[in-house]
């Protein structure tokens, strides 16, 4: 076991996969000589050379399309979005080509590629650097969308994403890179499509992902003291959603709270509620509660920013409220 920071866990995943399969390569802005803005590719340039750790010009749309072409012809690119928000400039390549080309080509090509990097609301980074693209991309067919949240799952999921033969949007969170955890010394892979039960419980199901998992964990401490026993599920896979795990939990608790960092309108939570409505309407004892970020561009001011995203206290209150209504 070795105590590992999340960014290093990601680095290990990339390093191991590049060692294992020489068609795997990384491209993006400052991934090479600079070692990546958050050091996820540190020193890999020296180890693997300038073609396998390719520093690109600032041309997101074209280097993303280039990765699609490389994937179609047998390589396995990993794109680092220096900040995932910058990939808005590559929306067309991600949606039409990474996402849809396999289908439109009638199966002629597969597109094994990973698009990864930091998303989410950081600390006063301003609106454009505080995006939660999962909401914008979730409707695109053909994409898998994954969000990691701990060093352990970050490493195992990234390895799985690199091995997957499909395009995977892989979200890291700008405020989680320095999380620490003991990681196994042996190799492991975490499946992309399985939600993680963070805490088993019976009173209410809390569905969350990425950084909000940690806000939930904080809230749970307070709730436990009050004798409340929530089940916490980290979705991991934002598309497709793991409704085996989610459904089992709902059948047990009959109450759901979603805690997400994306904006409310058209967010991941919206799709979850709609899917629960489709599948488990009769299991619900109460409306699902949706705790999302405010529907606004993230303000720079620290206090407004804090108000914009869901805080542990709000989660605690929402759970308490829901449980109280049960009685």
């Amino acid at each position, binding site marked *: 076991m070795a105590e590992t920071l999340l960014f290093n866990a990601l680095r290990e995943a990339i390093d191991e996969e590049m060692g294992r399969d020489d068609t795997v390569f990384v491209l993006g802005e400052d991934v090479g000589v600079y070692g990546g803005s958050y050091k996820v590719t540190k020193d890999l340039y020296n180890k693997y050379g300038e073609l396998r750790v390719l520093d690109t*010009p600032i041309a997101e749309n074209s*280097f993303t399309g280039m*990765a699609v072409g*490389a*994937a179609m012809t047998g390589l396995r690119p990993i794109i680092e979005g220096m900040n995932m928000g910058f990939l808005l400039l590559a929306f067309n390549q991600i949606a039409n080509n990474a996402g849809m080309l396999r289908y439109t*080509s*009638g199966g002629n*090509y597969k597109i094994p590629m990973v698009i990864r990097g930091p998303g989410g609301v950081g600390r006063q980074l301003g609106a454009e650097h505080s995006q939660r693209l999962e909401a914008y991309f979730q409707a695109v*067919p053909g994409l898998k969308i994954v969000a990691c949240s701990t060093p352990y799952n970050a490493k195992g999921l990234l390895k799985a994403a690199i091995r997957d033969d499909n395009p995977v949007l892989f979200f890291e969170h700008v405020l989680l890179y320095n999380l620490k955890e003991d990681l196994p010394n042996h190799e492991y892979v975490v499946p992309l499509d399985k939600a993680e039960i963070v805490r088993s419980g019976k009173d209410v199901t809390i569905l969350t992902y990425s950084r909000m998992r940690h806000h939930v964990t904080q809230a749970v401490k307070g709730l436990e003291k009050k004798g409340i026993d929530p089940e916490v599920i980290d979705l991991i896979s934002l598309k497709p959603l793991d409704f085996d795990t989610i459904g089992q939990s709902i059948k047990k608790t009959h109450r759901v709270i979603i805690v997400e960092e994306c904006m409310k309108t058209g967010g991941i939570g919206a799709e979850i509620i709609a899917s629960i409505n489709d599948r488990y309407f009769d299991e619900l004892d109460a409306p699902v509660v949706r705790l999302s970020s405010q529907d606004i561009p993230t303000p720079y001011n620290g206090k407004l920013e804090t108000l914009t995203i869901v805080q542990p206290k709000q989660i605690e209150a929402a759970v308490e409220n829901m449980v109280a209504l049960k009685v």
Partner: protein
Amino acid sequence: MVQERTLPQFQAPPAQISPEQGLVLYEDMILGRFFEDKCAEMYYRGKMFGFVHLYNGQEAVSSGVIKSLRSDDYVCSTYRDHVHALSAGVPAKNVMAELFGKETGCSKGRGGSMHLFSSEHNLLGGFAFIGEGIPVALGAAFQSRYRRDALGDTSADQVTACFFGDGTSNNGQFFECLNMAALWKLPILFVVENNKWAIGMAHERATSQPEIYKKASVFGMPGIEVDGMDVMAVRAVAQEAIARARAGEGPTLIECLTYRFRGHSLADPDELRSKAEKEAWLARDPIKRFEAYLVEHNLAEEGTLKEVRDRIQTTIDDALTFAEDSPEPSPDDLYKYIFAED
């Protein structure tokens, strides 16, 4: 109408080509022409749907470039892709079947006219959106270099030919990719088919500098202007660019001055192009011109050429029968091909 650009002169010495090679080119151009004529017929008879963009008039470009490639090289096209696919070796019947949306189509009937693909023939697409194929082609070219220089596979000397139009040369992806291709010396040909129009937009109204080949200069890349109605000229330029690319000397931008003999798509009323302009370009029909060249230089006799035309007519007729008789995709397969595992 603005002043027409003077087409660059090119005198092909007959020794440049063997009779066999001449017939390969001729057959390819005829195949392209007859195929498209059949599409028009089918569309107007209400048997083919969607947006259909024909290539008539531009055949010298597809044949001149693609027939100079090796079969393991890559071709990347646009929505005007039927003839590039044919030149790349995709059988006419599978292209026709695709246009009929059949399971036997090269994209299994899922893609249609603007989305032709064939991994078997290294045809990367069929891209319906302007410019989006350019980065994809760049990726294929990068892949060749990667295999050669990062993986040490000395046989990885494949070249990628990327086709697009004059209108597309105002799009950012064009410039971004010129830069990366030149920077990394990628084995790629950027082939601009300047047919003077982007739907209803005259090239001169869309660009501050109509000579597209010149744009290469500021990326440290050779840019060449060629008479796109002369297959021998296109071939000569393409061969040189391919040799450079294969030798690891990097990309070339080739601007082919050409013209489409039909409207932008079969839905386009084509009301804006002047009669005089159309006639001037029709007079340069690349097929007629190449026929004259072949005969004049004793590379082929008219009888042989007629045989080619007859054979290709049969190919097209067979392709049509094949397409019409082929099955539709099964409704059960609606979700097939979304993921690699499907």
